[in-house]
């Protein structure tokens, strides 16, 4: 019951925030559309960063193709809503429009997440069986293959991009899924299964010797991470209403890596902070025009010299509070005996 109440509370709070920020509740309180969009993109970045951290930060397997999974989620869900959207709406005629939108979006997200997870599984099985940096090599290639694939499929717009995607996602949906991502990842990391992931990061040979099926753990971790990236992609598509293959280049994957490295590999709080800081910095430095990326790179270099483990390292928000208040920590209270 408590959990249900907490869930309802979060949904209500997000709905209220959505209404206030967009100005649909009290027009005077709404923020500028530009700022609202930055906030929403920050939310999508949070999903991407937290999910990438599961495989890069906690499992210690370096993936550099996160944008590829995002693209799969984005394109598959957008294809679904563009092609079958009307038919699904017709079948849902008994619902009000907001309800129809919600169901349509959730269908798109589910399809995007499942397809991205399948892709993650197929990429992960051969490359994660091995120890070492094979995942980085394979995901690097995979991200490009997906992009080139999309460019050459005319049914989803090819190089022109896919337009006419219904606007189904907004602040509410993006931050709802950002919250779900954070909860899911922190629960995984703090579970028995999550301990095997961290053990693999610490010493893969020892983890295997302690009976951990390292391949299985890594593949599951990678598939979950990919599925969440697929969700981020689907939200991205239905927020901006337009997809272009150039949004999913290698640079996008690197951006997400930068976010988690800034925040601290192995810290969920750090990933959230990194995602927000990244978009804040890149937007905030806009007035320096062409010097923007130079300045940004300089800041990154300084950060890596001053604090190579990232701003937060392994530190988690709420880790010092009583256990039941902590973010996702489900370890039982200490038993004295």
């Amino acid at each position, binding site marked *: 019951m408590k959990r249900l109440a907490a869930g309802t509370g979060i949904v209500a709070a997000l709905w209220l925030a959505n209404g206030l920020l967009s100005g649909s509740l009290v027009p005077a309180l709404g923020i500028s559309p530009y700022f609202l969009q930055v906030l929403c993109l920050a939310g999508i970045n949070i999903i991407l960063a937290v999910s990438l951290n599961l495989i890069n930060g906690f499992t210690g397997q370096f993936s550099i193709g996160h944008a590829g999974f995002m693209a799969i989620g984005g394109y598959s869900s957008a294809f679904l809503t563009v092609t079958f959207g009307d038919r699904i709406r017709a079948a849902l005629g008994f619902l009000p429009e907001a309800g129809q939108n919600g169901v349509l979006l959730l269908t798109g997200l589910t399809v995007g997440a499942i397809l991205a997870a399948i892709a993650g599984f197929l990429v992960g099985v051969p490359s994660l069986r091995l120890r070492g940096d094979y995942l980085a090599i394979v995901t690097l290639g995979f991200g490009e293959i997906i992009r080139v694939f999309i460019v050459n499929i005319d049914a989803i717009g090819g190089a022109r991009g896919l337009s006419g995607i219904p606007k189904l996602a907004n602040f509410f949906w993006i931050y709802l899924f950002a919250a779900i991502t954070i909860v899911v990842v922190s629960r995984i990391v703090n579970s028995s299964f999550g301990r095997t992931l961290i053990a693999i990061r610490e010493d893969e040979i*020892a983890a295997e010797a302690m009976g951990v099926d390292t391949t299985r753990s890594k593949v599951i971790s990678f598939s979950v991470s990919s599925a969440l990236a697929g969700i981020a992609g689907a939200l991205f598509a239905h927020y901006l209403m337009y997809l272009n293959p150039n949004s999913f280049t290698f640079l996008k994957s690197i951006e997400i890596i930068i976010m988690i490295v800034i925040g601290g590999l192995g810290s969920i709080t750090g990933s959230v902070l990194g995602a927000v800081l990244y978009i804040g910095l890149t937007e905030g430095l806009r007035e320096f025009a062409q010097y923007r990326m130079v300045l940004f790179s300089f800041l990154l270099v300084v950060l890596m010299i001053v604090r190579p483990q990232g701003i937060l390292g392994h530190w988690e928000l709420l880790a010092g509070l009583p256990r039941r208040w902590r973010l996702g920590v489900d370890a039982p209270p200490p038993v004295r005996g």
Partner: protein
Amino acid sequence: MALLELKGVTMRFGGLYAVNDISLFVEPGQLYGLIGPNGAGKTTVFNVITGVYTPTAGEISMDGESLGGKRTGRITRHGVARTFQNIRLFANMTVLENVKVAFHCRQAARLAAAIFRTGTHAAEERRVDRESRELLKIFHLDHLAEEKAKNLPYGSQRRLEIARAMATSPRLLLLDEPAAGMNPQEANELMDLIRWVRDQYGMAILLVEHNMKVVMGICETVHVLDYGSTIAIGSPAEIQRNPKVIEAYLGGV
């Protein structure tokens, strides 16, 4: 029937025979010592048993079931646990978490149960927590439970390695130089602990050790390797008198 059987096992790296035609039988509950000068192939024997290397030739079986070609993780779940000569703890995890990781292979934990936090998952987590703490108590590490493994003194790290291996509920425990770097008093305590663990849990222990006081003090059978080949098998008293063993250690005259 022996618990662990190695028959004619050979491990060749290019032209080097790290282990050459070794046969070894460990009975349930036996304390079996494996000694030999540096480079004799002791650790290679461990790596072959645990599936890190696939032997060039020979048969390895446990309870009559072949371990050949199985991955390390499966062999561990089959009941073989090990410690490492160069300590391989999960450095950034706490002492308690190190032990909990090893419990995972005996858990029915489902990922979905963890994500939705079902009651059975919470109950299992509580059980693992309790059992891990009990195990730490046996190894005198309970007061360090929340400490990161890398911050432990050397002797405690060695004990934690054994505790972690014990958490997988092995029937055969492979200890690779557990007394390395310990002072005489720590080594004595370790001897008592190994003997106690064997008596309490009834598992067989295969021990590689350079500290002769430890080996001769606790092992029932001692197996001597030199240049990858067996040169003697017998009780500690027999081994100490064996001229071949003395020659291998001190050089011929």
